[in-house]
């Protein structure tokens, strides 16, 4: 017997096959109520969540906070491979390492619906997103109110892009390109110093501007449409968010990724997530068409549970 909320959880994965399986198994739940996500963050003061142990990546523990400390040290001495233009060469296929946080970027226990993971948030040190009071309440209502934009195969935006889907990185003079197998999405990051777009153009992936600081690729993200959550429980940033992502190689096959989110209308202070990207070294790897929306649209009327489309944090 599948609990109805597990159906709700699986639905969030936006996989057409899973959606179809749910329809066929008749595990549709009742209409949306104020039910929290089954993999919600335990309340403050709870003991550490029960989760499966983490492994190791590039000589560092995978667990986000431990990885962040270890990788920061390793980055100081690692000399990365370089492109003909002399910048670090990040090209190749990458998957996330140690971040079991698609369902919830805060710490959450392993359940039959979620993989369970320590918080991806390394600052503040308690691993909790420093929401303003109204925003925390809004987050808590998201899961039972809105569809995840990923169910409509829409682009993730920042920082979700970094942990949603596997990446294929390409570089050319003045650009870093990141192709994502999730919904065939991509990011184009110019590194030629051009200014950001004007404020009236908002984009699903945001407006991305890259620069090299030593061996680190710094990506400055503004102009996000922010009409999707950043994980399955409904954590969110607003269209006013300013995200600064930093990618540094600590080993030929490992990238240290951090993102600092500044959004004073929503949070009480800036906060930072960190985790690793691990290289897929299999020589025959190819990225193939996912055709996400082509698969999902026909099942949507059975699987949207009457949930609404998310209009953004400050929608009028």
């Amino acid at each position, binding site marked *: 017997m599948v609990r109805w909320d597990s159906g709700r959880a699986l639905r969030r994965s936006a996989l057409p096959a899973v959606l179809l399986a749910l329809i066929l198994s008749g595990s549709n739940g009742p209409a949306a109520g104020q039910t929290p996500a089954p993999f919600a963050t335990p309340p403050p003061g709870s003991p550490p969540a029960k989760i499966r142990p983490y492994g190791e990546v590039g000589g560092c523990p995978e667990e986000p906070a431990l990885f962040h400390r270890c990788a920061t040290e390793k980055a100081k001495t690692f000399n990365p491979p370089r492109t003909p233009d002399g910048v670090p060469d990040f090209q190749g296929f990458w998957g996330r390492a140690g971040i079991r946080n698609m369902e919830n970027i805060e710490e959450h226990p392993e359940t039959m619906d979620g993989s369970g993971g320590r918080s991806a948030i390394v600052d503040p040190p308690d691993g909790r997103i420093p929401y303003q009071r109204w925003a925390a309440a809004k987050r808590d209502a998201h899961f039972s109110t809105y569809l995840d934009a990923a169910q409509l195969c829409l682009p993730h935006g920042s920082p979700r892009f970094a942990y949603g889907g596997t990446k294929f990185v390409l570089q050319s003079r003045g650009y870093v390109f990141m192709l994502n197998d999730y919904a*065939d*999405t991509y990011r184009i990051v110019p590194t030629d110093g051009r200014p950001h777009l004007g404020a009236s153009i908002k*984009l*699903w992936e945001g407006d991305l501007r890259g620069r090299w600081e030593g061996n680190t690729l710094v990506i400055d993200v503004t102009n996000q449409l922010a009409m999707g959550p950043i994980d399955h429980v409904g954590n969110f940033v607003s269209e006013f968010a300013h995200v600064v992502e930093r990618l540094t190689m600590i080993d030929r096959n490992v990238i240290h990724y951090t993102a600092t989110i500044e959004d004073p209308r929503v949070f009480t202070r800036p906060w930072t997530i960190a985790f690793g990207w691990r290289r897929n070294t299999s020589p025959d790897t190819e990225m193939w068409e996912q055709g996400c929306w*082509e698969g999902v649209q026909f099942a949507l009327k059975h699987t949207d549970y009457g949930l609404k489309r998310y209009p953004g944090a400050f929608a009028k």
Partner: protein
Amino acid sequence: MQIRVAAGAIAALVLVGAAQAPAARPAQTEPAAPSAVPRTADGRPDFSGIWQALTTAAWNIQDHQAEKDVPGGQGIVEGSDIPYLPWAVAKRNENYKNRLTADPLASCSQPGVPRIMYMPYPFQIVQTPAYIALLFEYTHTTRHIRFGGAHPPGPIEWALGDSRARWEGDALVVDVVHFNDRTWFDRAGNFHSEQMHLVERFTLPGRDHIRYEATVEDPKVFSRPWKMAMPLYRRIETNVQILDYECQSFGS
């Protein structure tokens, strides 16, 4: 040829010079230099950049007159006729009749190849020696084009097909198979089956335009192969960048 032109120019100069002060500079008499075609480090034509078709083919790949919200346009089909088999003519006519709802774009599905190449939205070409990515603004379509390696064994049905490239001199030739039968060539209902085999040819006659040709073969729908061709223009605005058009985000 250039020598002859130069010689002719000099001869003209001499004639003019006989009547005028000998102030004319040779630089003014040289034929315009062909605009240099950019090349990659390995000497191949470099297609990198942001491009856009300026045809009305996304509405109709054949000659068509204007309708409300549809610009009139000249077709991109070589010889203008599409050699449909008899059953397929009927199907195309039915598609045309129902185009406002039956066009895959009406439900925000991908235009597929080749239609994505001439949608009225820009796309960016990322070129490396072993692989080329085409990143389209329209519904964030991504084409992966690989040099070498065989098509994976089918049957596979993709909107964009499986693209494998090779160089023929300065021409980039892309062989595409593994299509589905659910994408159209245009809003007018021109269509193909899952058996379509496309051979695309990209050449760079000048810095700022690509000549794009595609030969369409599909024995289930057409009596013989046929060809379409059009230029793709470089978006030369210095600040141009790919934005987004996320069709399903606009609701229905």
